[in-house]
């Protein structure tokens, strides 16, 4: 909860500019308000935060299926052709003894995207239902997903480098599968969804019920 004497900026008619952080007073009519310092549009809260976040999250969920079911990498070697999805690639690494690698890829490509989506879903639902439990912890969770978001790009880079380097004709070739495109899209969509979500909404609901 907010400490006893604190007032929220919104209740005082002030808002922090999202472009430069300047605290500006907002008149009642929203109209065209621009920050006097950086000319960015001023908003009390991120515009259409819930709608945009939900839309992006749904798209991410939809693409999560092809990302994990379709192969991300196709390896052709003297031993034959092998198609790997994200999960089968992790298992293959584990079985061939590279435990640390297997763990790193597993965390970056499976744990991180799922955790991000799960936490973001929980945050959205909690705001929608005007929940009041621990806004501070919820904000911490939001900061967590903001931080870990980019790390799911790891597998994309790995696959890129392998495909670019392993072009040894009949000896070995690596090609990227369509699953990688879906996975890349999931990473981008979840990063955008985290950006459109306004964590101040968590506190708005907590304040009303005080």
């Amino acid at each position, binding site marked *: 909860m907010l400490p006893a004497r604190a007032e929220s900026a919104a209740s005082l008619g002030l808002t922090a500019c999202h*472009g*430069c*952080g*300047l605290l*500006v*007073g*907002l*008149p009642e009519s929203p109209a065209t*308000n*621009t920050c*006097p*310092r*950086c*000319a*960015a549009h*001023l908003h009390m809260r991120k515009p259409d935060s819930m709608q945009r976040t939900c839309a992006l999250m749904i798209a991410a969920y939809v693409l999560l299926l092809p990302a994990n079911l379709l192969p991300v990498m196709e390896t052709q*070697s003297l031993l034959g052709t092998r198609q790997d999805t994200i999960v089968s690639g992790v298992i293959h*690494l584990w079985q*061939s003894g*590279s435990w640390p*690698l297997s763990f*790193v*890829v597993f965390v970056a490509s499976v744990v991180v995207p799922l955790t991000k989506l799960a936490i973001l879903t929980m945050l959205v639902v909690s705001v929608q239902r005007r929940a009041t439990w621990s806004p501070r912890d919820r904000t911490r969770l939001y900061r967590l997903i903001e931080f870990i*978001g*980019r*790390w799911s*790009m*790891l*597998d*994309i*880079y*790995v*696959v*890129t*480098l*392998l*495909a*670019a*380097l*392993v*072009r*040894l*004709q009949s*000896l*070995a070739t690596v*090609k*990227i599968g369509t699953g*990688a*495109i879906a996975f*890349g*899209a999931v990473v*981008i969509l979840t*990063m955008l969804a985290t*950006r459109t979500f306004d964590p101040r909404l968590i506190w708005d609901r907590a304040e009303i019920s005080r």
Partner: protein
Amino acid sequence: MRCNPDSRQRTLALTVTCAILFVLANIYPIVTLESQGLRLSCSLPEAVQVLWRSDMEFISVLVLTTALLVPGLEIGLILTVLLQRFPTPLLLRLIEVSRPWAMVDVFVLGLLVSIKKLSDMATIVPGPALWSFCALMVLTASVRATFQLRDFWRQTSVTYAARPS
């Protein structure tokens, strides 16, 4: 307040080094693969090209943007702002917007993972770009720590008369 010229000079030196490292990292090959007499090496732009030619345009653009364009843009913008007398608000905003999309640190980790994977099937010789990327990752973190956007925003306010809407 970090407006003193010493701090600015230090940040400027770091940023110039970053710029040099960035150029090196993209010109030279990252690693060289050797197997059965065949030898292949590639730099980041070359890897992006390979992807583009294999009809993987989306990923090609994604990797190009997050590992090359945006990091380069960020360095260029910071350099420009440091050399300006009064910082331009637009440039400061662009710096802020581009920060989350510059993923050099994730790229370096991806590099290391790929190298470990490749070393099982062939001999790997690290190239100059690999070290440049690692150094770039560390120095970019330094620059971000010393380049305080807030101070630069304050310097822009000096040049206009503040009026609430």
